[in-house]
């Protein structure tokens, strides 16, 4: 029973980073450390043999979440006083946290020493029937497709809630720096290309709709930072169709599957093609949703009286 030195270092760095970023005064520093935390998490997922998860964490957990946090902080900088603590309750809370931590660590160590097989065997047994050869994609899009369908629904719901909370539009007043513009010129075709590759690759190797959609969304956020008026103009008329194509496509395929079996039961021969089709729709919707969420959490408010650009 040995611990690899790398794992020990990684786990300690993760805990140390979480302490630094949550208890520090400067929020900007906290967000930067959060992005580093996300990347180290991606390494931890890789160490735990979860490459799909590592991809998703690096793109969405570190990248997009960091961008969202940074955007909102920038917008609220003037009223934000970072170093505050609720000093009356710090000492009791430290004691409470230590007790809870001790109990939970004890529980986790007990749980982690039981050898448990999990569902890996069952999934690998039925993998051939799913239409894809990656076990994670098979679980996400076929065996537990219901979860993914509802997840797309939740994403759409959050977009509606964000729009309902009050429309924002992207900040077009600050011109982008030369470095960002040059970087964007090089990176944007690569982002689109890698996104398409991840989408196609998801059927037989780590990848899939969420990673591809998040990468495309990241490309959209970068485009917003560099030339917002171009992207917003292109988005305006198409926004609803882009957001809806994923859930609608998945739902239609799920209902159409009733003809041959049950709701969401992909017919055996068509399963691979249908999964790719559904994933393509999901990629577009996830990308559009992430861009709308970024505008919502970092944009300027719409002018009173409903004046729009």
């Amino acid at each position: 029973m040995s611990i690899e030195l790398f794992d020990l270092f990684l786990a300690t760095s993760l805990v140390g980073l979480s302490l630094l970023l949550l208890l520090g005064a400067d929020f900007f520093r906290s967000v930067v450390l959060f992005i580093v935390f996300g990347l180290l998490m991606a390494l931890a997922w890789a160490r735990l043999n979860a490459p799909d998860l590592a991809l998703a964490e690096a793109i969405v957990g570190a990248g997009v979440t960091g961008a969202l946090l940074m955007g909102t902080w920038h917008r609220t900088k003037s009223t934000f006083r970072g170093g505050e603590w609720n000093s009356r309750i710090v000492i009791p809370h430290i004691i409470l946290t230590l007790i809870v931590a001790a109990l939970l660590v004890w529980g986790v160590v007990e749980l982690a020493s039981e050898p448990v097989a999990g569902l890996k065997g069952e999934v690998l047994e039925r993998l051939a029937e799913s239409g894809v050869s990656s076990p994670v994609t098979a679980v996400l899009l076929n065996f537990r497709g219901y979860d993914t369908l509802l997840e797309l629904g939740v994403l759409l719901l959050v977009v509606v809630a964000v729009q309902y909370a009050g429309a924002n539009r992207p900040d077009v007043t600050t011109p982008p720096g030369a470095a960002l513009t040059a970087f964007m010129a090089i990176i944007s075709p690569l982002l689109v290309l890698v996104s398409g590759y991840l989408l196609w690759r998801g059927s037989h190797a780590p990848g899939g709709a969420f990673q591809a959609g998040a990468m495309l969304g990241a490309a959209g956020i970068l485009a917003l930072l560099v030339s917002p008026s171009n992207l917003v103009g292109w988005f305006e008329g198409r926004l609803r169709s882009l957001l809806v194509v994923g859930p609608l496509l998945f739902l239609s395929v799920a209902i159409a599957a009733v003809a041959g079996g049950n709701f969401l039961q992909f017919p055996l021969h068509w399963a691979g093609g249908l999964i790719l089709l559904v994933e393509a729709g999901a990629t577009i919707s996830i990308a559009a949703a992430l861009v709308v969420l970024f505008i919502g959490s970092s944009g300027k408010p719409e002018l009173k009286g409903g004046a729009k650009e």
Partner: protein
Amino acid sequence: MTAPLYGIAGVLIFCVSLFALAVRPQLLHKVLALNVGGSGIFLVYIALASRGGGEVLDPVPQAMVITGIVIAVSTTALALVLVLKLEQLFGVTRLSDTDKGGTE
């Protein structure tokens, strides 16, 4: 031995985030704490999933955590929009400490 190690790390991250959530009054700090706490919970979950051993991790928990990450981003985005709206309407980014409620 990696399962208990990452499990303990995940638990500690979660406990630190609970502490930060309670003790830091600024809303942006709370949103950050929720996010980090979510990551800690995912770490515990996957660490326990890795008990099975071998080259391939149990795909069901992995798929669930991928879904969880996307949901966490959505929740964070909505929370940030609400913080933004609060700041635009009331000019503060924290909740009131007094019992009267509102934004002091």
